[in-house]
């Protein structure tokens, strides 16, 4: 390094390198400049200066200098290495790898470059390259533990677990007998556990067991050791031994559901679908009764039996379970119980139970049959629970009355307002839901969850502007900033699609998720990068590997699914109503009444001003942080979003092609989701790919033939193909033949009665009638019917949608939540079933179109 320089300058060069490593950038810069005074074209110095400037946030200069340095000294590995580092800092990992490879061509045994390269290979999942690099590192420095472990992990990631084991054993062979020394016991123990998990992974269960017995004294993490032991014994079929270990684990933590399930499995008492024979239920009850005696404080031991018990026994167990939680006041009680509503009959039992409890507390102040006086809050939490219960069952009227009662009992409990907002949302009044969410937010300004919830509700109610107000009022925290970002996006969309499109609500909602996720993902990637070396150093190998696997599975994650679905919808929307040029936009605006136009303009202006302000603030932040960069603590400031309103994103040439990309990801990763196929259907219909659309319909029917959405797609599909022109080309004829051949199958399969009508389904049906069939008369009749059943729905303009606007007045002089007269109770679920009567309209239509 710096060898071509005279001694004095060579020393200065060393200073640059050292200053860079110790983050004393100013000092490094000075040294570089004094070399360059004498040798203005010295390549390595130019490169190092560039690298130093890069850390001081002078990016464009940095690239220029590094490139010039490289040009002047193509044979220097330093220049190539620096170029790679520069790319790496901008997360251009592929380019960085190329640079490292060039550097290694010049200096093949440079440990530092090899190490950097290996990290990048792990990051980019170039696994065979990773193995190679790791091998080279090991042969260069076999006395470093980290190199052995790195080599083993590389093999493991490259799906060669047995090779990884060999490496680890070879490494152990190099150790003294009395290894490890006291200060490395934990690291060594992690290595052993890692090796054992490798044995287990390749099915070498006996070896795993043997190893565990031999090395038990050297393993520090006793909990993991026990879990591993129990798991291996279970896989070996030694259920008794496994069970007794799981029981001892329960002793350590009697609220870990995994342990309970494992004990059940050891006893042959576990079924994935939760179905048990009467005999099994008997045995399970006995098991949990005995566990309950041992672990009286565990809530898991009381909750799990609710899943398998039925009838009276279920009621009894549920009673025992909910009482202390109502006394204590656990707001999440309902979400804890909500999975039980999927079980037939349990909802009714719970309803009776809750009502009995409420009645008893009202009359005597005690639980049924108990002499113990309950605190006043028990009634509140009981009403809270009952309200959520009726909400879950779609009886919104009762739910609202109950929650209002709870609010007048104790008007200070924030959860009550949140739940009331949710009920109104489910009942179809988004504006009122947003008002309630905002009220809840106002009651604890420091609660981020409430902020987010409120923003979500407002977005659903298309109140982008209000969201901004909330944003300004609330302390800027990370979530909120990202939310502001997405609101900018949502607002832009609102301007673009001035007309209220369908999916509009969803659009807002989804697009934000997508936005958040995008930034979330990039953060995650960055984090992961730091982990590569950290984990190897700290030997937290098992966590490391599972983290990498998680990352690889990320695309199957629920949020990714949601986000991708949202993106696809956006693109389809863009296709349906292409963005307007500015003149058109103006036209659009001139159509609006003047007051609204003014508002819109103001909104745009405000948005622009805000964007400007934010950009300035960011810049200030950056200068501030670069000033403080001497301390080296500066976190990489996020680059300013060049496209804060998603304008470029929206002006895309072929939205359907973009949508197809996302769809492919969804099809690969979540093919069992109904939504994936619905999207595929919608997309392919737009692309006129009839057969692909048909495939999607078939998938839908296979997954759930009674789903209203499946049904809807089918109707749309046949409606479409009936209106296709007579086939002209051969391929069109072929398509036609295929469809004819498949038709009878489909007809027999579908058109089952829909069991439960959700408001969204009814809205969809209405849209279908209105747009696809264009039958305004039937659509209006449908709407009138729905308005009766969903009186709170603003979409159907139900009678209570207006009263229930619930404008929240923060001055509070007449709080509306107490002021609404009690409404006549909604008829029970059975009556909603009569909606099926009207379904025939649709069924008739669909069969018409099939014929």
């Amino acid at each position, binding site marked *: 390094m710096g060898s071509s320089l005279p001694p004095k300058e060579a020393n200065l060069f060393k200073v640059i390198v050292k200053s860079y490593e110790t983050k004393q950038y100013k000092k490094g810069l000075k040294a570089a400049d004094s070399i360059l005074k004498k040798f203005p074209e010295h390549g390595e110095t130019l490169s190092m200066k560039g690298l130093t400037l890069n850390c001081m946030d002078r990016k464009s200069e940095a690239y220029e200098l590094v490139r010039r340095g490289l040009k002047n000294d193509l044979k220097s590995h330093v220049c190539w290495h620096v170029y790679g580092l520069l790319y790496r800092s901008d997360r251009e990992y592929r380019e960085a790898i190329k640079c490292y490879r060039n550097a290694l061509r010049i200096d093949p045994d440079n440990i530092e470059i090899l190490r950097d390269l290996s990290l990048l290979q792990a990051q980019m999942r170039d696994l065979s390259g990773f193995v190679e690099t790791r091998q080279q590192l090991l042969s260069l420095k076999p006395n470093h533990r980290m190199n052995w472990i790195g080599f083993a992990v590389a093999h493991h990631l490259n799906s060669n677990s047995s090779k990884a084991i060999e490496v680890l054993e070879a490494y152990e062979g190099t150790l003294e007998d009395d290894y490890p020394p006291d200060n490395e016991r934990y690291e060594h123990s992690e290595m052993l556990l890692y090796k054992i998990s490798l044995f287990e992974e390749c099915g070498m269960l006996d070896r795993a067991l043997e190893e565990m017995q031999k090395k038990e004294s050297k393993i520090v993490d006793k909990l993991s050791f026990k879990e591993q032991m129990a798991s291996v014994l279970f896989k070996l079929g030694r259920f008794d031994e496994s069970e007794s270990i799981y029981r001892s684990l329960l002793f350590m933590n009697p609220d870990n559901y995994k342990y309970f399930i494992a004990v059940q499995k050891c006893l042959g008492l576990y079924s994935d679908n939760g179905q048990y024979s009467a005999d099994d239920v008997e045995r399970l009850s006995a098991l949990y009764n005995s566990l309950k005696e041992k672990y009286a404080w565990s809530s898991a031991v009381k909750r799990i039996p609710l899943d398998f018990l039925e009838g009276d026994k279920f009621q009894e167990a549920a009673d025992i379970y909910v009482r202390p939680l109502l006394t*204590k*006041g656990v707001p999440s009680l309902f979400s804890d119980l909500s999975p039980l509503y999927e079980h037939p009959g349990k909802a009714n039992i719970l309803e009776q139970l809750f009502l009995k409890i409420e009645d008893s507390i009202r009359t005597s102040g005690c639980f049924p049959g108990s002499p113990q*006086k309950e*605190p*006043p*809050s028990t*009634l*509140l939490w009981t009403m809270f629970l009952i309200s959520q219960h009726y909400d879950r069952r779609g009886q919104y009227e009762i739910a609202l009355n109950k929650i209002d009662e709870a609010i*007048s*009992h*104790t*008007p*200070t*409990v924030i959860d009550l307002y949140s739940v009331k907002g949710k009920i109104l949302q489910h009942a179809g009044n988004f504006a009122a839901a947003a008002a309630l969410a905002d009220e809840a937010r*106002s*009651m*604890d*300004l*420091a609660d981020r969850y409430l902020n987010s919830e409120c923003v979500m509700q407002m977005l659903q109610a298309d109140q982008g502007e209000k969201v901004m107000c909330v944003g300004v009022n609330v302390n800027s925290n990370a979530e909120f900033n990202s939310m502001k970002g997405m609101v900018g996006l949502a607002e832009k969309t609102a301007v673009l699609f001035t007309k209220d499109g369908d999916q509009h609500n969803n659009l807002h909602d989804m697009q934000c998720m997508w936005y958040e996720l995008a930034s979330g993902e990039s953060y995650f990637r960055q984090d992961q990068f730091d982990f590569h070396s950290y984990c190897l150093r700290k030997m937290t190998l098992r966590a490391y590997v599972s983290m990498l696997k998680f990352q690889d599975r990320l695309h199957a994650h629920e949020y990714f699914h949601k986000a991708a679905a949202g993106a696809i919808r956006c693109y389809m929307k863009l296709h349906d109503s292409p963005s307007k040029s500015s003149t058109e936009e103006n036209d659009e605006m001139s159509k609006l009444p003047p007051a609204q136009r003014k508002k819109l303009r103001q909104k745009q202006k405000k948005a622009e001003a805000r964007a400007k302000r934010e950009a300035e603030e960011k810049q200030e932040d950056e200068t501030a942080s670069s000033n403080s960069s001497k301390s080296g603590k500066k976190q990489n400031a996020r680059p300013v979003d060049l496209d804060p309103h998603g304008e470029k994103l929206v002006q895309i040439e072929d939205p359907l092609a973009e949508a197809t990309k996302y769809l492919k990801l969804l099809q690969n990763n979540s093919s069992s989701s109904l939504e994936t196929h619905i999207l595929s259907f919608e997309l392919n219909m737009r692309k006129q790919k009839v057969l692909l659309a048909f495939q999607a319909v078939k998938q839908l029917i296979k997954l759930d033939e009674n789903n209203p959405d499946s049904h809807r797609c089918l109707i749309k599909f046949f409606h479409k193909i009936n209106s296709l022109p007579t086939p002209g080309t051969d391929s069109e004829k072929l398509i036609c033949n295929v469809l004819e051949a498949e038709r009878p199958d489909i007809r027999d399969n579908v058109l089952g009665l829909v069991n439960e009508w959700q408001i969204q389904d009814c809205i969809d049906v209405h849209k279908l009638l209105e747009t696809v069939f264009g039958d305004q008369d039937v659509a209006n009749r449908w709407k009138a019917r729905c308005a009766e059943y969903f009186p709170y729905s603003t979409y159907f303009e139900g009678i209570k949608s207006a009263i229930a606007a619930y404008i929240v007045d923060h*001055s*509070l*002089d007449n*709080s509306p939540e107490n002021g609404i007269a009690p409404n006549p109770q909604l008829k029970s679920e059975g009556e909603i079933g009569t909606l099926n009567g009207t379904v025939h309209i649709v069924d008739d239509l669909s069969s018409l179109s099939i014929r």
Partner: protein
Amino acid sequence: LAGRPTTPEREGQPEAETPPPCSRRTQPLKLRRGRERPGRRRTGAVREGGSARMGAGEGEVSASKAKGGGAVERTSLDGVRDKNVMQLKKLNTALFPVRYNDKYYQDAIASKDFSKLAYYSDICVGAIACRLEKKEGGAVRVYIMTLGVLAPYRGLGIGTKLLNHVFDLSAKQNISELYLHVQTNNDDAIAFYKKFGFEITQTIHNYYMNITPPDCYVLTKFIGQAATKK
């Protein structure tokens, strides 16, 4: 015991009743100026408040004895801040038939530890709101603007706890005078405060408008350095 105290700050008190504006000179202690401007008068305000105040004094004592310390253990106090002031507003809406203006809330927040929200197993169920006033000669006194507990949570000793808190704090800061207003027919509240050493020091005629009787008592308690009772 909602509104047990006093319906203090009943709007509409005559201008003449406000204390001399001596406190204007008092920057160092950051005291508030005199009491609020007279506001709107509301009919029937105290009537409703009166019924809500039923069962104040004695009810409280006997009930809190019956329930033992358990309820008090479930109770904790927290300060009033701009982040949670909405809780106080919600309480007042439920407890008093009067709307308090912004100054009331500013005063409550500014009184720092003298105004407190009472939480019963993490639910906000009551509050005491005070204002610090500077008298002629520089001495400070505490004016209790409101004290109240939501109806379902009365009789648990929560009001007592709030009041005792203010006594203790006053003693610590060498404040020897506390006062408040009560409508003259609110026997329960008067009895309650007498139990804590308050005495009627003045009667103000026509303090309230549109309600009968329109008169109020000023109840005052002087405390020495000694600790509070209870």
